[in-house]
């Protein structure tokens, strides 16, 4: 009797282990996304969400994806990230610069969850960073603006004066001055990533001061709409905003996170995930240019040439000689700014007007 029971017990235990094991393998991987703005911003957050959808499509029911939008940068962010980690997600993407410190803090509490922080610079064993070289796209649109401007004043609606935004402004200025050395860049700061009303006001302020080509580093299509209303040209940000301003849009810089997200989720599944710092631009297609519209053929040819030049490595947006606003030579001829200098950029290049707020 006992003998039989022991065998039955053993069989049951082994059976349970096998079943349990296979159930483990079929458990979908929890993937979490934290967004700073609404998916409906039709800009930055929207493109991250497109990446999320790509992950869901690619992996089907091998993943279980959740996302939280409109998470303010600050203490709330820490709570949301921790909640996602507690809910069983194994890889969490925090998609805004301001989530940097909350991500690091939460990562310490959950060492076996992987965190991916976008546009930041702090890493840990379980925290990787990633970003896209948007500035490459900005150099291209700068070149377009430099060629097309008639007033020689081009504008930029900025969000916060952090290195990433400053980098974009500088690349825009450098691109413009590479084809038109007399161009000046005016910048207005909105102090928000997303506030359509204020962005529209900023755009109007710039246009009222003589700007005839407008670029932005804020997340709503409002500045582009103002550009269309006022009859000037503009560039879309983070996603193709052509349908908001079909007469004004020259092109848009499109963030393309799909490939990166799929790769990273796959790495977690394969167990090969490591903390890395990926910074891809036009070449790996993490940054793409939308169709060139509303421009003459020779401008289009220039734009395509600059884009191809960056992809092939022939053109580096931050190759010397580069002078700063005071005229001092910051990058010598033949040299390029390295990633470290780019990441900490806190100065304007020559041609940008106004003082950089600290």
């Amino acid at each position: 009797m006992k003998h039989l029971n022991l065998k039955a017990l053993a069989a049951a235990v082994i059976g349970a282990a096998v079943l349990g094991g296979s159930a483990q393998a079929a458990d979908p991987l929890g993937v979490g996304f934290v967004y700073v703005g609404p998916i409906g911003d039709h800009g930055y957050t929207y493109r991250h969400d497109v990446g999320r959808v790509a992950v869901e499509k690619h992996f089907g029911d091998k993943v279980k994806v959740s996302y939280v939008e409109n998470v303010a940068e600050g203490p709330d962010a820490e709570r949301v990230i921790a909640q996602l980690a507690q809910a069983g997600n194994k890889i969490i993407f925090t998609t805004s610069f301001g989530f940097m410190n909350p991500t690091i803090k939460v990562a310490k509490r959950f060492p076996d969850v992987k965190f991916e922080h976008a546009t930041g610079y702090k890493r840990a064993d379980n925290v990787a960073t990633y970003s896209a070289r948007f500035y490459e796209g900005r150099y291209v649109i700068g070149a377009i603006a430099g060629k097309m401007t008639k007033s020689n004043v081009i504008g930029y609606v900025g969000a916060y004066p952090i290195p990433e935004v400053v980098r974009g402004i500088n690349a825009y200025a450098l691109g413009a001055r590479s084809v038109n050395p007399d161009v000046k860049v005016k910048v207005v700061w909105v102090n928000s990533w997303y506030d359509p009303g204020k962005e529209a006001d900023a755009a109007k302020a710039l246009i009222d001061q003589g700007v005839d080509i407008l670029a932005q580093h804020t997340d709503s299509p409002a500045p582009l709409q103002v550009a269309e209303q006022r009859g000037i040209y503009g560039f879309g940000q983070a996603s193709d905003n052509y349908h908001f301003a079909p007469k004004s849009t020259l092109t848009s810089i499109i963030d393309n996170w799909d490939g990166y997200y799929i790769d990273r989720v796959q790495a977690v599944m394969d167990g090969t995930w490591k903390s890395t710092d990926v910074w891809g631009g036009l070449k790996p297609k993490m940054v793409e240019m939308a169709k060139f519209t509303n421009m003459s053929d020779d401008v289009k040819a220039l734009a395509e040439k600059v884009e191809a030049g960056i992809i092939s490595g022939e053109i580096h947006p931050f190759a010397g000689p580069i002078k700063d606003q005071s005229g001092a030579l910051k990058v010598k001829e033949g040299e390029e700014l390295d990633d470290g200098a780019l990441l900490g950029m806190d100065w304007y290049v020559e041609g940008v007007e106004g003082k950089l707020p600290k």
Partner: protein
Amino acid sequence: MISGWEQLAPLILTVITASTPLLFAAAGELVTERSGVLNLGVEGLMVVGALAAFAGTHATGSAILGVMFGALAGVVLAFVFAVLTLTLLANQVATGLALTIFGLGLTALLGKGYVGVTVGNLPQLNIPGLTDLPFIGPILFGQDAMVYLSFAAVIGISWVLSRTRIGLVLRAVGASHDSAHALGYPVIRIRYLATMFGGALGGIAGSYLSLVYTPMWAENLTAGRGWIALALVVFSTWRPWRLLLGAYLFGAITVIQLHAQGLGVAVPSEFLSMTPYLATILVLVVISRDKLKIKLNAPACLGTGFRPTQ
């Protein structure tokens, strides 16, 4: 480069656009508060108006109908507030705050389908000859219909409040509801109507935002303008003409700080964003300094519920 003088006309135009929604919302709230009801839900009224107007314009193709939808949405939400605070006698401050949060959340939910959608522009006034006058032409004669409506609203409210019987009764209800009740006036009904009127103007303010200012729908399109409108009512010490002045002042501050940046002036933008509220606090301090000043300025029964004793 554009000269300073040439910059002034477009600047004034931008200021007018920025100030109009504030003026509408504050004018409506002024009427509501003069009747003794403190409706802190202006932000909620504006945002439901914005969504309703946008959805209405998108569905019907007519901006005018859209604005009417916006006003209607404001009236409905204000009616809810009125029921809660005037009939059920809930605390007005808490209910008003709840209204704002509710409005923001509800519109975020209902508006999801409208993100990324575009609508056409509101018609602009164009009197050949007058509109083409240099400088003053576009400013005085080239605005869109809503700007003229906002002026008409302020003039109308000022006239009704100070020169008509209805206005007198409304002010009486706000100054002393017990006396008004003793005289036989329907206090609760008047307050209902005043609140709903405030809702209508709040809704129109929101519709201006989503149809003219930035012709799009996005969550939280109002971005705190309702709070500025509330501050504006206090800043104006509940007088319509001061409201006009205040609205343009507050609108100008917002716009000028952006222009200043473009010109290279280094005033921190956060400081300028604070200014409307600092100005309001200053006014509150001045008018609260002694009991007489308070009596002369604020509607004495503001925010207190009315319980008819007989």
